[in-house]
């Protein structure tokens, strides 16, 4: 502070060796007005105007005013701004920049808070549906078994992901596991082929880059209407019609709680595999009689299609619930971070504002003092 005052004193002495009386008067008048404006809080914006007026008066009396003003102005800000050499009258330009930044951060905070509440309300509805659907896949697993290690000659990896973003890491998780399944199948030999069926835009974006030739079909915009069984039955139908497969691996996030989502891989066998030796032994299927005239093969065909639709329905609901939960916590973190950034910016803004006001006062007062004495 004393260094600044000294610099000002030196500058004034240099550039205005013989100050006229009008300069003294105007200087004191400026000081009075300045204090008054500070009291009303208008000094913030007025400072640059006053400083510019004062700068004009000073430059009139000395040609070097403008150039010397720059480093002086910089010091006056107390080092709060790291902008380049600012012109004399624009001492508050960096303050303006900080103010703009504060406004935008505040808006971001409001938006993320709103998104969090929307996600929380949607979570409630979808969670009820997901919990209700948890019974649907269980009878199939009991009858046909869950064979996690089976990788048939033709594997179809169905990846469930979200259409919208800003939902944390759940899509990356699903893509990670899908990629690993592909590598696993490739490790078993060249005759093991794998294809992807991708549900959701986010996984499509991530997998398209590397594995475009493995992707068989995309299914997007699944949540335009709320998820229902008919939709899943249609999806299952399309998948079965357009793909030849031995095993379907369904990758999704199971909703455990609002902060915990478990990546899950469900294995579904095709009717041919079900009729084959392995599956029969696994699920003890040969001991089951079939009612009616249909052979076990036909019944298994219908059963496999029904299983795909049911498991897909449950998986899609679980994934949607996970999406809402993840979005809620992501937006919550984002709101908190925005609040912290805003606090820090406010502190630094206030510091720089107060420093610039102090500087103005010092200039004026020391100028007046120099003129007097």
């Amino acid at each position, binding site marked *: 502070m004393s260094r600044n005052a000294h610099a000002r004193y030196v500058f004034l002495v240099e550039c205005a060796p013989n100050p006229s009386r009008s300069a003294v008067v105007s200087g004191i008048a400026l000081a009075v007005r300045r204090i008054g404006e500070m009291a009303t809080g208008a000094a913030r914006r007025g400072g640059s105007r006053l400083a510019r007026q004062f700068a004009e008066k000073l430059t009139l009396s000395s040609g070097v005013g403008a150039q010397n003003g720059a480093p002086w102005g910089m010091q006056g800000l107390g080092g709060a701004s790291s902008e380049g050499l600012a012109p004399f009258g624009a001492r508050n330009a960096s303050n303006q920049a900080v103010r703009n930044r504060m406004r935008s951060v*505040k808006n971001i*905070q409001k938006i993320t*808070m709103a998104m*969090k*509440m929307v996600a*929380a*309300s949607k*979570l*409630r509805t979808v969670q009820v*549906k997901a*919990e*209700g*659907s*948890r*019974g*649907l*896949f*269980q*009878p199939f*697993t*009991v*009858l046909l078994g*869950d064979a*996690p*290690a089976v990788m048939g000659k033709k594997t179809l990896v169905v990846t469930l992901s979200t259409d919208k973003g800003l939902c944390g890491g759940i899509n990356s998780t699903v893509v*990670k*596991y899908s990629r*690993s399944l592909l*590598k696993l199948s490739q*490790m078993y030999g060249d005759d093991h082929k794998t294809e992807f069926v991708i549900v959701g835009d986010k996984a499509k974006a991530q997998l398209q880059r590397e594995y475009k030739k493995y992707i068989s079909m995309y299914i997007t915009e699944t949540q335009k209407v709320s998820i229902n*069984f008919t939709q899943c039955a249609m999806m299952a139908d399309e998948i079965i019609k357009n793909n030849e497969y031995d095993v379907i691996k369904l990758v999704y996030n*199971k909703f455990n*709680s*609002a902060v915990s989502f*478990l*990546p*899950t*891989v*469900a*294995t579904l066998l095709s009717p041919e595999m079900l009729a084959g030796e392995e599956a029969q032994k696994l699920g*003890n299927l040969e*001991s*089951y*009689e*079939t*009612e*009616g*005239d*249909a052979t076990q093969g036909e*019944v298994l065909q219908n*059963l496999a299609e*029904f299983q795909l639709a*049911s*498991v897909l329905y449950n998986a899609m609901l679980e994934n949607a619930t996970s999406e809402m939960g993840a979005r*809620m916590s992501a937006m*919550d973190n984002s*709101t*908190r971070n925005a*609040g912290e950034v*805003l606090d820090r910016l406010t502190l630094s803004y206030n510091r720089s504002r107060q420093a610039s006001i102090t500087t103005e006062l010092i200039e004026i007062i020391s100028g007046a003092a120099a003129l007097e004495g």
Partner: protein
Amino acid sequence: MLARQGLRSSLRTWAAARPVLARGFAAEVENHQEAVVPEKFKEDWKKIAPNYDLPHFPSSYMAARPAVSSTMPTKLTVNFVLPHAFEMQAKEVDMVIVPATSGQMGVLPGHVPTIAELKPGLMSVHEGSDVKQYFVSSGFAFVHANSVADIIAIEAVPLDRLDPEEVRKGVQEYAQKVTNAKDDLERAEAQIGLEVHSALQAALGVSA
């Protein structure tokens, strides 16, 4: 002020989510079984993805099923599930009659393991003298060796929720559609509608 707003809003969301969070594990099962994962799979997984944990498997989200008993069980355990709810979960009953494709099939404790495809029709659950009747759309019924019956249906409604007038109108409408059908697809759809409505009518006729 923003902090206070934030606190209030987060309290509100927490309060709103509280019943949900409290119910969070409602559909979870206490005695869930572990998934059976062969060692080879675990080793292969470690080779290709050493940094990722093994994924979870749906069999770990289910309750363990009772073992096959050597004696004749006295009760039948019924799990009746719909896409939107567990209608009956591990309920002990005396008998269940399901509308299989070959006609009404009665399931008693100790029934031979069966896989039955269901057609739209009347399903009744007998518990002592208590009979619950539902009209089910198609689905599947599994009877296991341990005297557990799993019934999966897409839709099931208790009979008292059905309106006889509407059913009669539906029968007439679909009968007409069958005769007027132009191509195979339309005829098939009309046939299905007619079958369902006739079954509805029969079901209502039986109990009404």
